[in-house]
């Protein structure tokens, strides 16, 4: 199923993860406040430009006194910002960044970004990732999975496609192989740089089935623009069927 154009409109893409609506609300609050400030200033300025133009007020009023009232805009905005940061911002940021779901009740996936592809690596039913050796990396085994490692037996690897079951949070461990990439899924409002030499873990919980697009948000070379992938959020049974198919395909 290709992504119905309905995912993307002129405004924000559809909010398809649990914290997406929190972020959308913050965006709305901020843009409403910005619009209000801008309109107030614009009205005031337009009035001044007309009322105090040379023809209308030939003599300006000389004064060096800055009244206390002149600080009200700064104070109001400062209070708004303090409220925004400490009441709204910090909890959401902590929720997104620090409340990672426990691995046992989440779908754990390792995503390795390389120049111009997203390599996904599932642990398979045994829940354990096979050993990955950089020296083993070659065209046939892009992830460098060590075939002898017992855990690697049921691991599944895929390129530019990630399948996750609906109803469970997804825990993604991000790293990169060559340069800095950035794992960006607009519908989930999630973005995290994949930095070589570092493992960043992020999480999101899809709230609807469908196909959502992965993009790279950090300049990573000449193929940066075509480094796209898809996340298929499948209902529980479809996902189980798919994983079983992968395992079946495995045993000769």
């Amino acid at each position, binding site marked *: 199923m290709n992504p119905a154009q309905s995912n993307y409109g002129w405004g924000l893409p559809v909010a398809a993860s649990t914290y997406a609506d929190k972020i959308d609300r913050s965006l709305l609050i901020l843009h409403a406040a910005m619009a209000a400030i801008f309109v107030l200033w614009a009205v005031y300025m337009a009035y001044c430009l007309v009322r105090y133009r040379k023809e209308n007020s030939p003599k*300006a009023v000389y004064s060096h006194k800055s009244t206390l009232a002149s600080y009200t805009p700064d104070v109001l905005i400062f209070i708004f910002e303090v409220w925004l940061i400490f009441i709204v911002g910090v909890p959401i940021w902590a929720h997104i960044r620090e409340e990672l779901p426990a691995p046992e009740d989440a779908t754990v996936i390792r995503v390795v970004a390389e120049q111009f592809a997203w390599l996904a690596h599932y642990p398979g039913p045994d829940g354990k990732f096979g050993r990955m050796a950089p020296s083993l990396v070659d065209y046939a085994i892009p992830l460098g999975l060590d075939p002898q490692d017992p855990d690697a037996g049921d691991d599944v690897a895929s390129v530019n496609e990630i399948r996750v079951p609906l109803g469970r949070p997804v825990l993604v461990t991000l790293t990169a192989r*060559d340069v800095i990439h950035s794992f960006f899924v607009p519908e989930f409002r999630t973005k995290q740089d994949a930095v070589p030499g570092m493992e960043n873990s992020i999480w999101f919980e899809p709230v609807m089935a469908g196909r959502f697009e992965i993009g790279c948000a950090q300049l990573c070379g000449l193929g940066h623009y075509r480094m796209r992938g898809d996340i298929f959020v499948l209902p529980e049974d479809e996902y189980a069927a798919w994983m079983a198919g992968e395992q079946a395909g495995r045993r000769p």
Partner: protein
Amino acid sequence: MTAAVHREESFIGKWIFSRDHKVIGLQYMFTSLVFLLIGFSLILLIRWQLAYPGRPIPFIGDLLPDSLAPGGIMMPDFYNSLGAMHGTIMIFLGIVPLGVGAFGNYFLPLQIGAKDMAFPTLNMSSYWVYFVGGVLMLSSFVLPGGAARAGWTSYVPLSVISSGQTTWLLAMTFLITSSLLGAINFIVTTLNLRAPGLTWSRLPLFVWAQFVTGLILLFAFPVLQAGAVLQLLDRVAQTSFYMPQGLIISGELSQRGGGGNALLWQHLFWFLAHPEVYVLLLPPMGIVAEILANGTRKPIFGYKEVAGSFCFIAVLSFMVWAHHMFVSGLKTSLSYLFMTTTMTISIPSIAILTCYLLSLRNASIRYTVPMLFTLAFLPMFGIGGLTGLPLGFTPTDVYLHDTYYVIGHFHYVVVTGTLIALFGGIYYWFPKMFGRSMNMFWGKVHFWGTIVLMNLIFFPMFIQGLAGVQRRLYDPTVQLHNLTVQPTNVLMSYASWGLLLFQVPFIVNFFWSIFKGARSEENPWQATTLEWACPSPPLPHVNFEKVPTVHRGPYEYSVPGREADFWPQNEEN
């Protein structure tokens, strides 16, 4: 002080290797305007590729070599080079040298009543080091490796493994050295060579802005110098300051020692780059203060608040840099700290904007061309500043980072903010520099065309940003979520080409008026600051016939009980 014996200088001595701050100011102005045009034209090519991805560029396409644009169709590598060089040229070769090098060198000594900068030879060498850096930066297009293609931020490891970066780093070292030499000059001149009676509270806000900018440059640039040297060694000497362990580049395991950290470069780079964006902002804010006071015929509202805010911005600008790294693997605990400092630094900017807007009350506004640019600066910079809030606020920055929203934000601050104010400064001080005034009709044409088209280019960027369009995409239509908003690219591209057309009247007007403009007397705008107390153009090497003494604040307009509505600083009664 004995007047310098005026020896007849050869053409070389007078114009090329001159130590007169005014000549150096003009050299900076002409060079930075040329670089601005070059940097702008690079982006016009990109606009074609964004509007019509993959289709050959009409006229210029077949002029380009096949290695860059075979059959006129731009290659992704060339696209990345254009983007990286556009950013680098506009910031390091265009706007900062225009705002700090040209206006600062020319008018700082004049506004403090000094004969020249504290170190004239250092000032001259700062221009020539800048010139060499600029030429080296541009020559990277034709050098074998091609131009830099890792963005103007040159993030490692991409910038270490892609070609073209070595020339970029060398040119950057020259530019940094030039800025440091300039900063030393500005600081010592402002501290030491003020005219008698010119205390700190009587200093024009333009001088405050240049002095604070000098301090920011002085403290911020050496750190990037250090970062650039480390990156240069990574590229050339196979060290691995920034290269982590076990990199697999195009399939093979890299043989480097490894152990470095890719984020270290981002810290060192943004430690400079954020203060650098305030270096872009402060001089134009100084120019806006000068023109606003002159155009509204009344003292700037809250002189102390504005000068204080400049210093507060300068200090805080060294504590906010990691808001560029919220999603780049920065530890979450640090992102709380930098979110708070970023929100705190928005307060002085709002305070300055408030004071400027409150200056309009009870004013008597003259709609001269410089005043038009200054008045346009206020709302435009307002949008730029306000759109910074969602980027400094982590939950919304997660979504908006590295999208076109960011590009819309900083272009509103730098282009419709800084560049517009600098244009206003050119129209305002042109009579002082050349003794002739620019044609005001064509000035208005240039103003209205530029402002309208700039908004047509930059406002849709917010729409694209909210739709999630990433930045630096060679072909946005590959990503499905960009398809809906792709028409905005076509609109923006036509607006950008239109913007080029509207610069023609400015360029013609600028060069034509130098020789044929209507003659103007010493103080055409009836301003009060010291640079209007000397002939235009000011006397070579000595500026003022006699050293002015300052008796009052910089913006004594419409003082009750005087018939002239302006009271120059150097007049006794």
